[in-house]
């Protein structure tokens, strides 16, 4: 069953002539995230993947404008078009039905407040709980993301955590509103490979245990191969190919996907440059 359906989404910025000429930077993007699925959106810097995500949540920069398309979210009360919602309703969706995980856990957390304060704030924004109950909920959430020593950690500040732990806190906050969908924008890019493996495993656990859907935005095809069920490849504002992960890696249809796959250095497959040198030696 489809949870999130983006149809014909076009996002434009004002051109040189200002408001009179709009320049589309994301053009007619359509994608559908099923329930319980990890959907990968890959592309290089500037391909429009982050803008697409921001548009889903109504978080586009003030000068950007959605010129056409719809973003439909399935819920118990039927389907809502997120683009048509007012600010109040949208706030309930953001962090409520859709949880957000950003790339830089170091800047996405407020350095001046304790983790407990920030998680409790996220919990109480979406649920009516007393401070005390919300604090218990915060501990439960931190346990859920496998944060060691959760209760004691509540009084720590973000700088006291390592990068991997900060990302766990971000995920805990994203889970606070009991979301159906996690929108994760490059969640492991700032992390070492060993910690990246832990966070990807955590996302898979959450999907399995909570039935979450994940829209995973990444530039790393390796990450896609390891975690996603389906994937869409973006280039210059358009989706050039969408496929099940096995199919995409077995038989990439679009030349750009093939080029992107060829550019990923693989362990065990030496580049011709190096092999030439070895022959000579």
């Amino acid at each position, binding site marked *: 069953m489809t949870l999130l359906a983006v149809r014909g989404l076009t996002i434009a910025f004002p051109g040189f002539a200002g408001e009179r000429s709009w320049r589309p930077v994301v053009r007619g993007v359509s994608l559908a995230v099923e329930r319980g699925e990890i959907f990968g959106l890959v592309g290089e810097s500037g391909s429009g993947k982050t803008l697409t995500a921001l548009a889903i949540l109504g978080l586009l920069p003030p000068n950007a404008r959605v010129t056409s398309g719809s973003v439909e979210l399935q819920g118990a009360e039927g389907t809502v078009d997120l683009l048509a919602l007012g600010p109040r309703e949208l706030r309930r969706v953001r962090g409520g039905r859709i949880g957000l995980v950003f790339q830089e856990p170091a800047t996405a957390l407020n350095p001046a407040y304790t983790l407990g304060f920030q998680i409790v704030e996220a919990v109480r924004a979406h649920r009516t709980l007393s401070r005390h109950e919300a604090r218990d909920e915060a501990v439960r959430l931190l346990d859920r993301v496998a944060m060691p020593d959760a209760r004691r950690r509540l009084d720590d500040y973000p700088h006291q955590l390592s990068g991997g732990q900060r990302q766990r806190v971000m995920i805990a906050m994203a889970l606070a509103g009991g979301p159906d969908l996690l929108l994760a924008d490059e969640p492991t890019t700032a992390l070492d490979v060993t910690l990246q493996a832990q966070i990807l495993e955590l996302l898979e656990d959450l999907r399995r245990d909570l039935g979450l859907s994940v829209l995973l935005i990444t530039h790393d095809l390796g990450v896609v191969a390891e975690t996603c069920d389906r994937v869409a490849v973006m280039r210059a504002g358009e989706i050039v190919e969408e496929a099940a992960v096995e199919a995409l890696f077995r038989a990439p249809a679009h030349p750009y996907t093939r080029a992107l796959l060829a550019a990923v250095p693989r362990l065990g497959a030496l580049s011709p440059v*190096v092999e030439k040198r070895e022959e000579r030696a």
Partner: protein
Amino acid sequence: MTPPLLVIAGLRKEYAVRRGALRRRTGTLRALDGVDLEVAAGECVALVGESGSGKTTLGRCAVRLIEPTAGRIVFAGEDLAALAGHELRRRRRRFQMVFQDPYGSLDPRQRVASIVAEPLAIHTPLDRAGRAARVAELLALVGLAAELGDRYPHELSGGQRQRVGIARALAPGPELLVADEPVSSLDVSVRGQVLALLADLRQRLGLTLLLIAHDMAAVEQLADRVAVMYLGRIVELNRRAELFRRPLHPYTASLLSAVPVPDPGRRRDRIVLPGEPPSPLAPPSGCPFHPRCPSARPRCAAERPPLALVAGEVGEVEECGRMVACFYPGELSPRGVRNGQGPS
């Protein structure tokens, strides 16, 4: 075999940790805890490891951007650690550094040509016209169009900026290049180009390269030998192909298995290490890796395994020493690597 161009022996770097109003010394952070490494002329040695393992500190100590606490850095037969001031500066033209961040390491107020010309003004007797000619040569060498010399760094793409950083490092004609994560801030498609450029320059100019990287795939394209670092020490040192085919240290095996592979069929065999690297302020007893090691035994918590040569198997020709700091080497293999069989 050619004599080593760079010999690092017993290198240590400690930082004092001070607390409170009196700034009393409350502890010692050992960023480098006794590192020995030899780099032959024309060789590329890669330093890999997680953040905080000391690889950048080692790279910076090697060119004395950081003062080591103890140990020797012998470059072309001379101990750099013993040199100071003018004497050290005169030798700097022979070893240069390429920095990780092509945004932060270029002066935003200088044009590209003047950035690349600055080391020439310091290290060579060239006059203005001579420098301009050399800058043009260098830009061509790193694959930049001559007219980019008039641009400012913000007008360039990330890949172009990194090429400027490489041109600047090559300007005084160094023998050794220390490249600290030269491609990790670039897009995949550009990464390959910059790695290929480094490989090409190495061959053409006969450069010796100390490559600092956490991206194993980048390492595989360039390095002859790989040194794996953990908590300020080298835990495994081997020729690249051998290390990737048959990692001996369990940390190397886990690191290799954590690299995402663009092949959905392989996803189930990765070794996910528990926890995070321990703090160098309070290193664990015994082997520093034992709290996270999947095959740790009681001995690992009690004794620290030294970095020692591993004997080759019967019939195997040992060209250069495989070294590993582990009591039970070779027990853990990453996915796709079983019984010493390489991935197809």
